[in-house]
């Protein structure tokens, strides 16, 4: 059985106690998206400033447990300055580490569940510290909350760009 040391690694506690990129950005021009974890009531607000196809700046607001807060803090450091494509690769790599399965319908209309596959080219760096969360399934939602919220911000930005191009 997994021990607490697998979950609460020192780097995680450091990000929890000293969160990076905490605060808000003026929106607009930044994009503001809220994420909720109905299980525990955690709320995260991601502010992301997308300039020239890259993340120019990011801030995290909201409140939550050590896992959701440290994951958001580490995420903010990892995505700042990255291209949007690079951020999407990182989100997929993080979800793969969290053993997230994605659901889709196959050709016959049957629902299939497939694991998000890791991309060996994407380096997770410090984010590797969150790997132990997988042993505590209830907490996976805490770790992925800010990532799903960021993905939603990117999706909304892409949809908006598509609309204005038409």
């Amino acid at each position: 059985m997994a021990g607490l040391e697998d979950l609460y690694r020192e780097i995680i506690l450091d990000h929890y106690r000293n969160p990076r990129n905490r605060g808000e950005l003026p929106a607009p021009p930044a994009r503001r998206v809220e994420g909720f974890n109905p299980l525990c009531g955690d709320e995260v607000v991601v502010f992301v400033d997308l300039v020239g196809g890259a993340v120019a700046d990011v801030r995290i607001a909201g409140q939550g447990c050590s896992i959701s807060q440290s994951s958001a803090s580490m995420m903010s450091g990892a995505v700042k300055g990255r291209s949007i494509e690079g951020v999407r690769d990182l989100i997929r790599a993080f979800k793969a580490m969290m053993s997230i399965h994605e659901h889709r319908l196959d050709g016959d209309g049957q629902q299939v569940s497939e694991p998000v596959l890791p991309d060996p080219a994407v380096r997770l760096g410090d984010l590797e510290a969150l790997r132990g969360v997988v042993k505590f399934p209830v907490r996976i939602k805490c770790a992925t909350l800010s990532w799903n919220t960021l993905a939603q911000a990117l999706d909304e930005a892409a949809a908006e760009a598509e609309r204005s191009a038409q």
Partner: protein
Amino acid sequence: MALRLLDPAAVKRDFPIFDCAQRREGAERLVFLDSAASSQKPRPVLDAMDRAYESAYANVHRGVYGIAEEATAAFEAARSDVARFIGAPSTRGVVFTKNCTEAINLVAHSYARHARLGPGDAVLLTELEHHANFVPWLMLREERGVELRFIPLSDDGYLVLDDLERLVDGVKLVAVSAMSNVLGVLPPVRRIADAAHAAGAVVLVDGAQYVPHLATRVDDLGCDFLAFSAHKMCGPTGIGVLWGRDDLLEAMPAFLGGGEMIRDVRVDGWLPNEIPWKFEAGTPPFVEAVGLAAAIRYLEGLDMAAVRDHEISLTGYALRILRERHGDDLTIYGPSTAHDRGGVVAFTFRDVHPHDLSQVLDQAGVCIRAGHHCAKPLMRRLGVAATSRASFYVYNDESDVDALSDALFSAADLFVL
């Protein structure tokens, strides 16, 4: 005072989970402090349900053969046990539902249609309700344009009733919990019901937390409807109860449509069955009803007055020990005296998030609830996003409180600088 005292060590031996549950490595025993979410099940309940499946299982109210008659008799006998347990005048007002939430939804739908609630009508709630006694009324407001009013809460968790007469004026229905699942506070239901009746309103009591822990008489509560769940009172999941006054249930239209709730069906219409069956569409949870009846007899054997005395004593011990040992590190919500609350203690521990606290406590085998406890409006009123909650039942004793306190010190070591 109860004539008998409850012996939690003896009670615990009736609950197989304390012998059978897989324990966390390093944890000496299972310390279960989450009965407000769902209680554990004693052997007599498990045995009664096994016997029902093994020896007399067939659908109820259908077959004309022996085991079907036996199953029907057991199901209807369970209705008598429920009526006795809550002091209901007859079994006609005892409706079996899926759970307490469905019972409240039944009233929200069916009474609203009967009374033709609409714009200009008001429903009165309180700020401490569980989502189950909140969302059905929010839905009613969206659908029918009724006004919702709320009895406010003081900072220490008591309802503020100074304005009660003004609040009930023009109200058609009052829905109030008899015991908060977060603060443990026991609102003065009788006083609210009397004011509501004087204003011409009917009263629904959410008894999900109250009925399992305090001797319950519907006449004493003064309510017109009482809703509760079996699984919080040693019974199985999948069954709850709505008790309602006969005349109201008779006047109200059916809730769900299907088998058992009809007297006749033709291509051009249908006639409803008599109460209580009018509200029991489809095959009911009749084995669960047998389990609920066994749970009721088990609790009656312990004596509900003894259960209440035990919980006052244990809650008083918890409030004292937690304050003495943890001082300002711990913020406890709700009334400061055990007599004013049920066996529920919600708290925050320094700035440690309840989710993290619960995870650390789990390593010591201590099971508490962390989160908003399905009472987000109350959390907002308290100014917190989430709390931790320890709740007690018949199998808990002072050593469980000590284990909780010890585990809080381990959490402090990990999270506090």
